[in-house]
């Protein structure tokens, strides 16, 4: 299966762009995962200072420590991977006909919403904060005439450029719909 199947890509439709959150927004998860990886060192220091140390030096204690450590580290890797997948699958797809928001809220929770390009009324982009200004990422907020009144691209790279691209595509789509004044699909 591919992305085309998930969004039910129409025959005349072509994917212009797929956007994800900027990689910098994933850095806090990386830092947190690294902290989790070094946390057992602190625990080791606490145990080495306590009276529990002789127990962990026995064969049974050592086995518990190794198996417990293994479970802990594998859980950390799984935690990191799950967050990466959530980050990776949280994406926006721009086609020549519509915008799709695939929001991965958890491993078993995905929301897909879409809006036709010709229904976009207004678009604004915002870059707010130190890191967004340095790394050029921000939000694009689209006002639409559809049932979803507000469509937001969160923390995408180069929001100004993307906003212009979306507005250009929306203008093209609107032009087509005005010419035909019906629901026949646009030709690519």
């Amino acid at each position, binding site marked *: 299966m591919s992305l085309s199947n*998930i969004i039910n890509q129409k025959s005349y439709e072509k994917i212009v762009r797929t956007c994800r959150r900027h*990689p910098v927004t994933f850095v806090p998860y990386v830092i947190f995962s690294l902290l989790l990886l070094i946390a057992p060192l602190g625990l080791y220091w606490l145990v080495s200072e306590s009276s529990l140390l002789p127990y962990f030096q026995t*064969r*049974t204690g050592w086995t518990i420590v190794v198996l417990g450590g*293994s479970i802990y580290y*594998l859980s950390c890797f799984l935690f990191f991977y799950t967050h*990466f997948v959530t980050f990776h*699958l949280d994406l926006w797809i721009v086609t020549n006909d519509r915008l799709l928001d695939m929001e991965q809220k958890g491993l078993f929770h995905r929301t897909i919403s879409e809006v036709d390009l010709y229904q976009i009324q207004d678009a604004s982009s915002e870059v707010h904060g130190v890191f967004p200004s340095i790394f050029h990422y921000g939000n694009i907020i689209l006002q639409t005439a559809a049932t979803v009144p507000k469509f937001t691209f969160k923390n995408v790279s180069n929001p100004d450029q993307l906003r212009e691209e979306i507005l250009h595509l929306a203008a093209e789509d609107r032009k087509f719909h005005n010419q035909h004044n019906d629901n026949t699909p646009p030709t690519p």
Partner: protein
Amino acid sequence: MITVPLYALLIVYAIFLFVFFTFFIINFWHIFLTGTTNFNSFVVTMLVIILSVLTFYGTWYFLRGTDWQQPLFTLNLSNFSNLFQPGGNNNEFLNF
């Protein structure tokens, strides 16, 4: 008197590994199913696989000489029966 052997920990570990592999496959399947495989997803998947393999190897390496038949703890059931009797010894249920 019930003696719980050390390999009971291996059973717990095996249950954890089952959960770990299940979630790992679900995660990987999500990426594969949506057709969003790219360089980043490949690198992160390989990183997680390599680190997991290293962890498995380390676990095996540190525990390779373990006698799994030795007792983890001994459960003294006779103390349970004396629990509610006056003067019963209820201090030593588990002997490590």
